[in-house]
């Protein structure tokens, strides 16, 4: 079988990612790198629901936090990390499914959707913050209010509770999970389900007119995004070895949105670029006190919204294409309206 260029690109991309994975620790500490990878997965989850499904969620951090807290709580109760890890995906996915069903079956418009996701994040934040008194227990896990939950079993090799995965190994695991998540979504958005979801993101009414139950598709997509954010949360919990209410904060939600704007959401790689670049920037800015972080991010956001509304990904990918093929596209103007994958005439050839 001949691989079409789509597959060729994908394989080259994965190969490059693996090279990056092996080389990066020589330049940046793996502790920082792991966090960037975790943020990338979180960004990817919003990129999916926003860029492909057209659902702008202001509360992606809620699912991230829920994943982290689920992991911590179950890890304390269960010990071995495999089941807590899976539950940290399932709980936020279920939560997103229910929240999504309420919003989409209730036919909320975009503005209300934004408001509701925002408010839910706030409520979770407030609630978790207020659980300091000892009666807030789940099994043997004390929720701990603003102090958070420390001292839980971090990631271990499945079936071997004493074989912790940490340091460089943890970084590799995160990276591999990022690659797998990317690949999973890559195929998801090319499946019939993904293509219909993209169509719905493009024009909901047309999708209904041709017989698709838009509410169902959006709810499922939203749940997938929630699950992926939860996965990032579980990794985060293992990385930080403590979970705190700050995970649910609006600041965290806003940050994910900024990553997506800067990276661009018309392709899956965009949010990853955004998270890594801004994550690094934040890291370096954090080492000095001369310039205020938030000011810098504000300026960057304004610049992108005004001058580069499609984000970095299209630019990066056109450079990448030039390197690979020297083919050039003239259709960038319309590109911003739809994820790239759907724009070829014959996806499945």
């Amino acid at each position, binding site marked *: 079988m001949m691989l079409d260029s789509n597959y060729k690109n994908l394989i080259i991309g994965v190969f490059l990612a693996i090279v990056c994975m092996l080389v990066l620790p020589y330049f940046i500490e793996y502790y920082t790198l792991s966090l960037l990878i975790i943020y990338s997965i979180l960004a990817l989850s919003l990129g999916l629901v926003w860029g492909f499904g057209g659902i702008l969620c202001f509360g992606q951090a809620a699912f991230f936090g829920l994943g982290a807290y689920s992991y911590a709580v179950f890890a304390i109760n269960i010990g071995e990390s495999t089941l807590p890890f899976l539950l940290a995906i399932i709980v936020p996915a279920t939560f997103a499914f229910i929240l999504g069903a309420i919003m989409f079956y209730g036919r909320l418009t975009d503005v209300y959707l934004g408001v509701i996701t925002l408010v839910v994040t706030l409520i979770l934040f407030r609630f978790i913050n207020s659980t300091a008194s000892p009666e807030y227990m789940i099994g043997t896990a004390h929720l701990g209010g603003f102090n958070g939950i420390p001292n839980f079993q971090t990631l271990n090799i499945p079936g071997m509770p004493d074989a912790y995965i940490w340091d460089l190994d943890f970084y590799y695991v995160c990276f591999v999970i990022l690659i797998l998540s990317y690949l999973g979504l890559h195929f998801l958005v090319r499946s019939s389900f993904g293509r219909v979801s993209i169509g719905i993101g493009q024009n909901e009414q*047309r999708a209904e*007119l041709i017989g*698709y139950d838009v509410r169902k598709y959006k709810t499922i997509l939203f749940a997938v995004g929630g699950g992926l954010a939860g996965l990032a949360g579980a990794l985060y919990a293992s990385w930080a070895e403590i979970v705190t209410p700050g995970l649910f904060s609006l600041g965290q939600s806003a940050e994910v949105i900024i990553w997506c704007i800067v990276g661009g959401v018309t392709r899956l790689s965009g949010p990853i670029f955004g998270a890594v670049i801004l994550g690094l920037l934040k890291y370096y800015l954090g080492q000095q006190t001369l310039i205020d972080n938030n000011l810098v991010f504000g300026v960057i956001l304004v610049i992108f919204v005004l001058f580069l509304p499609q984000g970095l990904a299209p630019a990066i990918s056109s450079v990448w294409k030039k390197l690979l093929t020297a083919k050039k596209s003239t259709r960038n103007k*319309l590109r911003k309206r739809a994820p790239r994958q*759907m724009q*070829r005439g014959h996806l499945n050839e």
Partner: protein
Amino acid sequence: MNEIVLETHNLNMHFGGVKAVNNVDFTLRENELRCLIGPNGAGKSTFFKCLTGLNKPTSGEIYIRGEETTHWHTHQISRLGIGIKTQVPNVMDGLSVWENIWLSARRYHDVKQANRRVEEVIERIKIGDITKKLLGELAHGQRQRVELAIVLAADPWLVILDEPAAGMTGQDVEIMVDIIREINRSAAMIIVEHDMQFIQSIANQVTVFYQGSILMEDHVDNVLADQKVRDVYLGRNV
């Protein structure tokens, strides 16, 4: 006489005090091609939206092949095998022509069959030269044609179109007339239209809407010769 495929009883759609659709009893039979005409604001689009689930009627009933669909969702009505085109073009601008049509075909077929179905429709509507273009890149007339292709890809037995020729000129209108005749060979049709010439070239039976109600229902020649209809179109009260 042919079997009834769609009917409404006492259909009402009121917006506050505006009776956009007022006690409409409407019947459409198998294989029929019915044009709905009427001056601006007569209630044609509102009636169309009630039929297609885009508006929830204030009162009255809608039956499609004997089944009451009054409060159904649009996607459910569509799934009965009904092709719908709204007055405002409704396409996925950032996707290619091929992909737009495919999404419609995929609803009723597996991937392989859907691919085949798309090719058939492209052939039928003669848009083979633009399949890879994005909808947003197309001229208005082409977009309307593609929208019909989207409708056709689902093999509808009933097709409801709101102003398919709006904003079109000369040659595009002729192409549209041909396509509509072609569709009518396998499907009953309701076409909301404004343009008299267009109606003359396709219609047999015409329903005239005026102020939310049916003013007249007859053969196109009689309708066009009718003084009341002329007055309505010239903006005189009747």
